[in-house]
């Protein structure tokens, strides 16, 4: 009996192990090895840390990383600020029968690919686009303005593309929040502000943290949105990795950048967990 169960366990474990090993561990080992090799002055491949030194020695590289990380944090915070009221409205304010329909509305834009959504925004915001056209027609503007290709438009695009990943965990965590807790808080003299900061946010923290991790990682690793909406000033760290692989033919440097992105972003998340006193195992549940 016991032997039989072990076999079953092993058969189900095998695909998981194969997946992890063949599709995740193996390619990363290859990249890791590549990142420690570089071409010396004679064009020979040698071992060394040169690719990592390059990152810290060349200000444009680490500054781009810092910029990417800070903007990703801003995007994460904005999705939280917008996502919490939306999730609260869906779970607590409207009647239960509309809840499904509203959740579906939040999901709907994600049925098309990110590229289509980004082009949608570009059609709206470009100088000869829909928004400018309306503003000109109504006389609010005398001359069309370019709304694309700046950081504000880029952040808006990133918030839009990642919103769902904040709202869904918030909905699931707020679902389990008993209405009585909020009512009791008001009965005991709380106001909207103290209820928000002392009841709702502390209760929703696991959802907030797991949503934030997903949004932060997706934003940090995004390539399309910064590139298309951000335009000429939007050097994102992923684009730098792409440039190393594609434009400079320097796969070794690109691999090193990839690993630095992995390590530094893990570090930021670890710090975030420490600060919010959350535990990764609990959050990802």
């Amino acid at each position, binding site marked *: 009996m016991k032997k039989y169960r072990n076999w079953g366990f092993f058969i189900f474990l095998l695909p998981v192990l194969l997946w992890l090993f063949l599709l995740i561990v193996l390619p990363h080992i290859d990249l890791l090895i590549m990142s420690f090799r570089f071409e010396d002055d004679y064009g020979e491949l040698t071992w060394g840390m040169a690719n990592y030194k390059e990152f810290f020695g060349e200000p444009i590289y680490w500054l781009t990383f810092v910029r990417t990380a800070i903007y990703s944090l801003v995007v994460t915070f904005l999705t939280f600020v917008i996502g919490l009221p939306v999730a609260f409205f869906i779970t607590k304010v409207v009647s239960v029968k509309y809840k499904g329909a509203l959740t579906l509305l939040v999901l709907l834009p994600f049925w098309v690919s990110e590229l289509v959504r980004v082009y949608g925004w570009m059609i709206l915001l*470009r100088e000869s686009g829909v928004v400018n056209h309306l503003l000109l027609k109504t006389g609010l503007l005398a001359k069309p303005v370019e709304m694309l*290709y700046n950081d504000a438009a880029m952040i808006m695009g990133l918030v839009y593309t990642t919103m769902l990943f904040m709202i869904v965990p918030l909905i699931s965590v707020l679902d389990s929040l008993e209405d009585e807790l909020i009512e009791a808080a008001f009965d005991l003299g709380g106001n909207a502000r103290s209820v928000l900061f002392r009841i709702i946010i502390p209760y929703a923290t696991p959802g907030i943290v797991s949503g934030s991790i997903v949004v932060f990682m997706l934003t940090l690793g995004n390539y399309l949105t910064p590139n*298309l909406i951000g*335009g*000429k000033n939007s050097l994102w760290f992923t684009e730098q990795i792409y*440039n*190393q692989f594609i434009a*400079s*033919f*320097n796969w070794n440097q690109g691999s090193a950048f990839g690993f630095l992105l992995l390590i530094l972003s893990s570090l930021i998340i670890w710090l975030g967990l420490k600060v919010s006193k959350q535990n990764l195992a609990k959050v990802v549940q």
Partner: protein
Amino acid sequence: MFKKMLGAVITAALMLTGTNSIQAETLNLLTWKDYAPKPLKEKFKAETGIDVKVTFSNNEEMIAKLRATRGAGFDLAQPSQDRIQSVQEKYKLYQAMDFSKIEKGLFIQSMLKAVEKNTMVKGKPHAVPFCWGSSGLIVNKKLAPNASDYSDLLNAMYAGRVSYRLKRPTLIGIAFAMGDDPFAKYSNVKEYKMLMDKVEASLIAGKGFVKNYWTNGDNLLQLLRSGEVHVAMGWDGGGWKLHAENPDIDFIAPTSGALGWIDTFAIPAKAKNVSAAYKWINFIMRPENAAVFTNQEKYATASKGAAELTDASIKANFQRSFPQAAIDNINWYPPVPANLEKIEGKLLDRVKSAQ
């Protein structure tokens, strides 16, 4: 009952996949957007039974894709002739062209010879020409009547109305506009780097005037079509396409010389269907087929006799943009030596991150 149904479904599925694999002889073509027009794909399929599966790409991505698989996954690629030699020496992406399988008579001989010479590695040629054209300026003449050279891309007069690609042709063009000859410095990395430093400084100084760095052909055409951009660096074919829609917009050969390129056919090292690749080359280079391509995409081909079969507007385009002096002034890309890409890559990163 259930078992029977399942059996029927499985046999039906097997039959379907079986017949599919017999029918579907495919040619995996790695090429630029628009290089395999639909009518030609259909005609080829009717003649040979081969499906052409197209993957869109550009020079840099073609090299990266083939390098990742060591030359597998595609049966035919179409890199520019200057991007073959050094890459081939370093990564061995392509196999030598077997000229006995190519109908040489279909090609304009001088062009065939030039590509043969420029893609020679270890005594063997690695490509044959397909089409050619040039990079220069696409200008909205009504709104920017005086734009005439690459330097106008950095001209404050056109602030906010300029677009170009943040790729090597722009660097080369700006270098020529400065009165220098980057091609002559290809062989001297040090001097080339000094020249590129100057180009970088002027690109950063002029960054404020750029509306956006365009990233693909459609992107560029849309910017010009909507009137958002008045002066752009682009390909002649794109400029002539827009001219057909709006006569104010046209391609201009810059005064310091248009940059001439030839795109080729090269067979990846591990191509599966090599015979289909040669069939496609011999098919599309036939004058009547090459003319279909030129009429639709406006690019001239290396097919002998195709020029007589193209529309009158194609000839008019060429005569309008290229008076004899401009033709003599074209700077043709020589093969790019290794190590330049690294210099240029870092430069482009610095321009993009500059404020």
